[in-house]
């Protein structure tokens, strides 16, 4: 599904809205997330997942074609961690749905879907 298809589906479910409105809605959602990440904020959406920004230090990289070393500057990258509910939904038909010890092996990491809901 691409963005325009998403807009179409939402528009179909809401016949009282103009397609233009739905485009604005989807745009506002994505821009709000992108703005937050650009500020270095976290975005946490229960039931879906959490976006955050991680710093990558400057490093010496290598041009894979020529083999010469190049300096790679420090940069920030967006990361997404799937929420617990979403993870379960992806594996709904599967076995072992107990998420009791699910988070055991995640030392101090992000726990977007901690207790609530």
């Amino acid at each position: 599904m691409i963005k325009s298809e998403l807009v179409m589906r939402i528009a179909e479910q809401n016949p009282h809205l103009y397609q233009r409105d739905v485009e604005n809605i989807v745009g506002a959602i994505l821009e709000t997330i992108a703005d937050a990440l650009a500020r270095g904020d976290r975005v946490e959406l229960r039931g879906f997942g959490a976006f955050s920004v991680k710093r990558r230090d400057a490093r010496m990289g290598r041009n894979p074609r020529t083999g010469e070393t190049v300096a790679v500057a420090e940069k920030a990258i967006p990361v997404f961690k799937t929420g617990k509910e979403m993870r379960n939904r992806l594996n709904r038909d599967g076995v072992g749905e107990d998420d009791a010890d699910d988070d055991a092996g995640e030392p101090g990491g992000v726990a977007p879907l901690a207790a609530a809901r």
Partner: protein
Amino acid sequence: MAGRTVTRADLCEAVYQRVGLSRTESAALVESVLSEICDCLERGETVKLSSFGSFVVREKGERIGRNPKTGVEVPIEPRRVMVFKPSNVLKARINGESAADGED
């Protein structure tokens, strides 16, 4: 730098500000956008949102894992995971660059 956390409420507010709908309806629409995306992914479909990124579902095969605390080997069942691949535009934006120069 460790800023605040943006949540659904902020997304609803943004929609409310931008589109002339009630707060209740804005909230409902944020919800339907997210659930439409979730439904798609649950079906195993890729969701591509241009200039933002794409969500892809990957099938992981079974492998032998290890309990890091006890060292006991445990089989990790085959499962589906979802990964987010940020677009070059989003990556550039986070690094305060203009959208055009995506890759180095």
